[in-house]
């Protein structure tokens, strides 16, 4: 019983949504489903946020290693909740939009969250460099092909690429690195992308069918 009902819900909802694609007057089911999803996700957040608070409070109570950071996290979470729920400092008051400039919520976003966010993102530049240094080595055929393709595209995007090969006569201009880079993007790269995309969609179809037919149900949990 505890397993059959969820299974039934899953198959019914999935099948209805597949069918709705073909029936013009049923298309709005798809929008309804994503609205439902949004609403369920907020309720789920009460579990997630609750988990966050519980994990960190426990750390503080037990004074386990790094408990002081948990205090900081809890403080940050609390400040943001208070600022956002009561819309403190919001020029439009409680009825105004939360993202209005001047509200504490927006200030915290602008001066705290936003720089943290873009700096974390910017670390990517460092990792791109270390990955290139370490991983792009001609260890075997595959690695060599990867390396050569990346190298040609990289060269093609700097002045070096033009300088190195602009002695190649116009008839063979395809072989100049910038042109070669574009050709790689146009032909073999496109072919590879296509194969990956087609493969992915067939993979999604077979997995979705496994789910709808109830063959794959590990995420639905046990009988208790």
């Amino acid at each position: 019983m505890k397993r059959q009902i969820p299974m039934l819900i899953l198959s019914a909802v999935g099948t209805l949504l597949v069918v709705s694609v073909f029936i013009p007057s049923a298309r709005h089911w798809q929008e309804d489903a994503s609205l439902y999803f949004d609403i369920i996700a907020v309720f789920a957040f009460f579990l997630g946020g609750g988990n966050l608070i519980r994990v960190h409070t426990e750390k503080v109570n037990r004074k386990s290693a790094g408990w002081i950071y948990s205090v900081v996290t809890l403080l940050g979470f609390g400040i943001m909740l208070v600022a956002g729920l009561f819309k403190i400092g919001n020029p439009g008051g409680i009825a105004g939009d939360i993202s209005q400039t001047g509200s504490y919520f927006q200030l915290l976003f602008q001066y705290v969250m936003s720089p943290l966010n873009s700096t974390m993102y910017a670390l990517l530049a460092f990792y791109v460099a270390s990955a290139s240094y370490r991983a792009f080595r001609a260890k075997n055929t595959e690695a060599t092909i990867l390396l050569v393709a990346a190298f040609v595209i990289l060269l093609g995007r700097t002045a070096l690429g033009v300088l190195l090969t602009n002695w190649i006569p116009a008839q063979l201009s395809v072989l100049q690195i910038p042109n070669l880079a574009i050709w790689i993007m146009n032909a073999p790269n496109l072919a590879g992308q296509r194969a990956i995309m087609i493969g992915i969609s067939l993979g999604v179809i077979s997995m979705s069918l496994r789910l709808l037919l109830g063959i794959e149900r590990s995420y639905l949990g046990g009988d208790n």
Partner: protein
Amino acid sequence: MDSALIGTWLAALLTLGIMSFIYKDNLYYKVCEAIFIGISAGYWFITYFWDSLYRKAWVGIVHQGDYILLGGVILGAMMLTRLFGKIGWIARWPLAFIVGATAGLKMMVYFTTNAMAQVHGTVNDMMAAFSGGDLYDLIGRLVILIGTVTGLIYFYFSKEHKGVFGGVAKVGTWFLMITFGASFGYTVMSRMSLLLGRIDFLLTDWLKLVK
């Protein structure tokens, strides 16, 4: 004191804190990480709260009479049964709803926009780059054809990659490698500009070293 100035200092200190991680994990980074987690979790909760719960559900049901949304609220409430041990299994119902909806919707989306459109594209628009009849175009077409077909053969599961079939699949992996190499090379520059933005902020807006 000027609030924008405080803001800039705060932003600069947080920027340096996160950057210090690439040297090694340290106290400074841990503090920034803790702030980041707390503030951002709160940010998203508030955003969901006002946007989904208040604007979509409450306003939709109470003010606009969109009673179909009640179903979402009921399913959402079922999610919370997890908090009450004994009846926690009810939370599987909304989960089943979501997995079913995702499977059904995404199956069709992937089928039309990935599979069919890509096959269509290979037959149809790939010719844009190689539409002529000279050697350059013929080679281009041939490469796309071979690349797409051998790439698909690589993903073929029900035959061992041995003999001729294995050789063809091997060619497929080469094409995948070119694809990976090319996308890696192409994105490097845009990744650099992100770092450029941060360092520029530190040097120009904060330290005012550069005018």
